[in-house]
């Protein structure tokens, strides 16, 4: 099996080399002619990076494309570097970018000039959920108990950890504060994994980690999920701990905390590409999503497995942009 694998990788390199000398291979539909650069506007090891590298692997493993995908991290300026790079690669069909919420938050918070309208929308791959977590040794068993405690405490007494500043985690925190009617102290960290560990170590009181970032600590009994910031519970009935599955986590709304938020895991291309080129990638991601590995990946990470393309996707993004603008305006996060 292993030897076969090495052979295959050599063959893949050979194929790549062969394509190098015949760039204009005649074919009906458009196909990438060079290795496809997959830009990640975030650092290595984060959620978007993991998903991009996973897709890179899936495509190679299942031979979904003749050219290889190359993952490139451009995380500077809260992802602005990556978006600006794609924006300036007008008409380059061999470049795609995976997005986080920073597609909306970074231009608003920093004033760096880009907007999703500068890019070509391709597809929504999934939505990432947010769950309210506390340490398992804390006395708060339900959302209501925790909210009551925050309300009863002094302003800023409870500490919420999150990834980055003026980004999704802090937006949720501000919405939560508004719903509860008391201030929390928001402490920004570099990555979601670090936030979860800080919560395990009891340096903070709660977090809004994505499921995949905190699931290991939940299983080991160190963290406790209180509620999910979605309109419906996550549809995964497999037991994670002895008694609970993702499905058993109630929505925050049902617990009297009227906050909903999901993060876009979407694909965009540079401006000025043809519909034919966009269609190739839509088709590619349809194939990716059909694999059993993808199903397992989304289940492990409890992703909201919605797929959207074309007009639906554009409408969704437009709406999401509006929501972010309102939320960030209310929180005072907009750059002057």
């Amino acid at each position: 099996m292993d030897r076969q694998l090495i052979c295959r990788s050599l063959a893949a390199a050979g194929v790549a080399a062969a394509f190098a000398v015949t760039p204009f291979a005649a074919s009906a539909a458009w196909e990438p002619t060079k290795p496809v650069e997959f830009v990640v506007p975030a650092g290595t090891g984060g959620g978007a990076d993991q998903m991009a590298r996973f897709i890179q692997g899936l495509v190679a493993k299942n031979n979904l494309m003749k050219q290889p995908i190359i993952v490139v991290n451009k995380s500077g300026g809260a992802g602005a570097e990556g978006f600006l790079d794609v924006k300036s690669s007008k008409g380059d069909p061999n470049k795609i970018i995976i997005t986080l919420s920073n597609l909306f938050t970074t231009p608003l918070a920093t004033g760096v000039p880009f907007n999703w309208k500068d890019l070509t929308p391709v597809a929504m791959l999934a939505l990432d959920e947010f769950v309210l977590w506390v340490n398992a040794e804390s006395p708060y068993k339900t959302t209501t108990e925790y909210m009551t405690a925050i309300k009863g405490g002094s302003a800023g007494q409870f500490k919420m950890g999150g990834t980055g500043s003026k980004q999704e985690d802090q937006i949720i925190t501000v919405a939560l504060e508004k719903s509860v009617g008391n201030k929390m102290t928001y402490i920004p960290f570099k990555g979601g994994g670090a936030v979860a560990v800080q919560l395990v170590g009891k340096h903070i009181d709660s977090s809004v980690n994505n499921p995949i970032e905190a699931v290991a600590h939940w299983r080991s009994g160190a963290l406790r999920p209180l509620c999910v910031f979605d309109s419906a519970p996550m549809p995964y009935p497999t037991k994670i701990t002895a008694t609970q599955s993702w499905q058993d986590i109630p929505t925050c709304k049902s617990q009297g905390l009227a906050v909903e938020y999901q993060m876009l895991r979407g694909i965009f291309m540079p401006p000025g590409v043809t519909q034919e080129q966009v269609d190739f990638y839509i088709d590619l991601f349809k194939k990716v999503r059909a694999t059993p590995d993808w199903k397992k990946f989304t289940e492990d990470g409890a992703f909201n497995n919605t797929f959207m393309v074309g007009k639906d996707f554009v409408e969704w993004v437009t709406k999401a942009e509006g929501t972010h603008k309102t939320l960030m305006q209310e929180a005072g996060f907009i750059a002057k």
Partner: protein
Amino acid sequence: MASNGKQPAGAIATRWVEIGVAVALVVVGAIVILDSHRVGVGWAPDGPRSGYFPNIIGWILAAVGAWIVGETVYRWKSLESKVFVEREQLKPVLQMLLPTIAYVALVALIGIYVASMIYIGAFMRVQGRFGWLKSLAVAIAVPVAIFLLFEIWFLVPLPKGPVENLLGY
């Protein structure tokens, strides 16, 4: 730093370079201070603001820079004989620096592979006085090895230009 009595003609005196660098430090310090004031230099109730530390750093940098300027001026006479670099030393340094600047410009224009070929080949031929054959061999072998290593095996894209595009990359 050679200091053999009287300064030979055409050499650059250390004191001037010293002052130049120190003034540059003061300028950098000033820029840092200015920008820190833009983002706020205070100490908010929940800790220092964005510009708090940079502001302090800017002031120290500017102060130390000014100190070095002052010290150099104070010792101006005694520094007279100190030579930063002599002409026959400066020449090879410039022979390295100028082609390197040209090389970086070339990389931006025509990609790293062709630029490296020209740079290595020209350097070996002109500075090292190697034969055409040897210069060409190294000039071609190194970029090709780099190309195989980075683009093909490790899939790390490097800057490319029209020649690579023509070949389909």
